């Protein structure tokens, strides 16, 4: 291992020495996921290369899911490989990247611009990308969990979109009684042992003012509040609002059920809207509303943020050029371009109200208030372990194999060894 490190360092040194006398042409490689619209990124990069003839950017497309991509990147970066200059990372990763020293901190490159640059982003993204005072990455596009609901059914039974969990329960019951369709599911959120299930736990916790950790990064799950999310979902499952098989529900299955007209409402990410409205076989086109997640008290909503960030790898041989590139990719101009070409949610509040953007995506005006209530999942280098602990316990609870107390106790004891 050590040998590889020496090699890598020697390689970097050599390359840096060579770079000063190198030709004008700089070759950059950017890594993105197959689902983050590499085609749109290429189009944007064409424009960049036209303006910067000295730079050539190549796009490498990775695995389909955030998890698959990170597993690949873990192996590559653990070997201190210098072949990637810029990497598009999930919003949950900056802390891990900072701790592993895989990301080049951007502060020195941003210089005096730092505060002004960061201030323009939506607050959640500003927070997510600054770890221990250092800027680790710049936001590329936003995402959040919304409550999608069947506007037509809610109107038919004269109910308002729910602001509280109690209203969600009542509305669901009313629709179920009226529709009398045993195949109609009422509400779904992720329950399988996947990343989305972490949000299933955190969203109610945040709504109650709870938090996983305190300011010093110590575990701060107080018993009274920490148990509430379990009780909420347990209650909704017992009432038949959540389906019996909630523990096997994954993100896309909710979208598929919803789109097939077999689900009344769902807590889900931004991609659902485009599929619902654009897919040829969608059964619910034009029948969908988007509101912030219901809360315990009206107006105290919270939700999980998603989205993708641009980081410069610490092993890149062209850091200065790479930083220049990501500053461009993280500009309002590109954010707008992405919103129009790929319906990616912007990371700048102003872009949501841009006339061209709204023309392409009328629902963005409903999305902005939701994104503004969005919160970051815990910022920790060992996020993968944290995620695993939360999702496994939530999943066991939803499957009915663990009681709320047992799940919470297990969660607290295991998280305690990480946040100490």
């Amino acid at each position, binding site marked *: *291992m050590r040998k590889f490190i020496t090699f890598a360092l020697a390689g970097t040194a050599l390359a840096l020495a060579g770079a000063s006398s190198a030709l004008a042409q700089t070759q950059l490689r950017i890594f993105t996921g197959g689902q983050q619209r590499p085609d749109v990124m290429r189009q944007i990069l064409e424009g960049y290369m036209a303006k910067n003839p000295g730079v050539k950017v190549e796009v490498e497309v990775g695995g389909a899911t955030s*998890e698959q991509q*990170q*597993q690949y990147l*873990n*192996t590559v970066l*653990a070997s201190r490989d210098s072949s990637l200059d810029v990497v598009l990372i999930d919003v949950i990763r900056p802390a*891990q990247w900072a*701790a*592993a*020293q895989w990301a080049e901190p951007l502060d020195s490159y941003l210089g005096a611009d730092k505060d002004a640059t960061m201030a323009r982003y939506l607050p959640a993204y500003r927070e997510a990308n600054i770890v221990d005072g250092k800027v680790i990455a710049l936001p590329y596009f936003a995402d959040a969990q919304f409550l999608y609901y069947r506007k037509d059914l809610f109107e038919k039974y004269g109910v308002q979109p729910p602001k509280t969990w109690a209203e969600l329960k009542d509305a669901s019951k009313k629709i179920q009684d009226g529709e009398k369709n045993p*195949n109609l599911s009422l509400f779904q959120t992720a329950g*399988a*042992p*996947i990343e989305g299930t972490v949000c299933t736990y955190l969203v109610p916790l945040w709504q109650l003012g709870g938090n996983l950790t305190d300011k010093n990064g110590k575990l701060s799950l107080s018993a009274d509040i920490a148990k509430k999310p379990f009780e909420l979902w347990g209650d909704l499952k017992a009432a038949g609002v959540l*389906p*019996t*098989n*909630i*523990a*096997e529900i994954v993100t896309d299955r909710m979208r598929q059920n919803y789109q097939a007209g077999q689900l009344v409402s769902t807590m889900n990410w931004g991609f659902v809207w485009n599929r619902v409205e654009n897919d040829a076989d969608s059964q619910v086109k034009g029948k969908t509303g988007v509101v912030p997640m219901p809360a315990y008290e009206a107006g105290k909503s919270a939700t999980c943020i998603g989205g993708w960030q641009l980081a410069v790898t610490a092993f890149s041989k062209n850091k200065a050029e790479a930083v220049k590139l990501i500053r461009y990719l993280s500009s309002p101009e590109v954010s707008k371009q992405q919103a129009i070409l790929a319906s990616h949610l912007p990371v700048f509040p102003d872009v949501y109200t841009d006339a061209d953007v709204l023309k392409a995506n009328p629902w963005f005006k409903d999305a902005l208030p939701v994104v503004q209530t969005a919160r970051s999942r815990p910022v920790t*280098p*060992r996020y*993968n*372990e944290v995620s*695993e602990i939360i999702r*496994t316990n939530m*999943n*066991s609870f*939803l*499957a*009915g*194999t*663990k009681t709320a107390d047992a799940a919470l106790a297990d969660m607290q004891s295991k998280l305690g060894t990480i946040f100490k």
Partner: protein
Amino acid sequence: MSAATLDKAPPKAKPRLSPLERSERRLGFILLAPAFLLLAVVVLYPIIELLTTSVRFYHLAQPWMGTPFIGLEHYARALSDERFWESTLNTVLYIVITVPGAVIVGLGLALLANQPFSIKWPVRLGLLLPWALPLVFAGLIFRWFFEYNQGLVNNALGFFGIGPIPWLTNPTFAFAATCIAIVWKTSSFVALVLLAGLQTIPKSLYEAAEIDGAGKWQQFVEITLPMLRPAIVVALIFRTITAIQTFDIPYAMTNGGPGHSTETLAMYIHKTTIDFLDLGYGSALAVLMFIVSVIATTGYLRHTRRDPRKA
């Protein structure tokens, strides 16, 4: 099984080798060299890395800790790690259930496929398809089958008024569902080996037994099974090796859930190294897994340690 006859030949009466024998021996080593060279690159060198990493603290998410030598701490941690024991137990259960399961189902398939069909290929193709289907695909297909609402299994059971059964969300059912998928996928290879074995049994044996008035069941017990024994042993061995490494099917079907109830040792190692980036601990787990696999395949090693020169 001639397990005890290992390495007895050539008889050591002649301590000195003739020049011809010596050159043959040299050639023997030369012919072995490519295999061992390949193993050195692909397995031995990584194993050395693995062993040295397992006695160090090496967590990629905590690089500031360095990689200090910590002795056997990781091993001690594993022994008190509930999840390690749970995944080891699951792996053992997968071996104990799916290996005999695949052999029994495979035997049944082989016996059926050994009938004198006029057109053989559709049967053979049916027999061999699961074998040629990548494990990950098999896992994906069965996840779809066992889904609660839209799955084929629950819909079929519903037709008979049973269920619906929470196949993937109840620990016991989830384990059963993954076992079914594994047996389906792996019984195909077993059937292939056993079918080959069945075809070596001379027809005359059955004819003779028929004349002696032996019933069909008696023929099966007294001729088929003993004659098939070598093939069954081979099938058991290969099935056991793959069962120890069970990964793809539970990974695709349940991702180890609910809880950790279908997680195998291989999955836990993959999670620890590739997801949690705890290379030190992951390496120690991998070493422990190797020990488990050696224990599980000791019989196999004894089986192969016969002198290959004796047919």
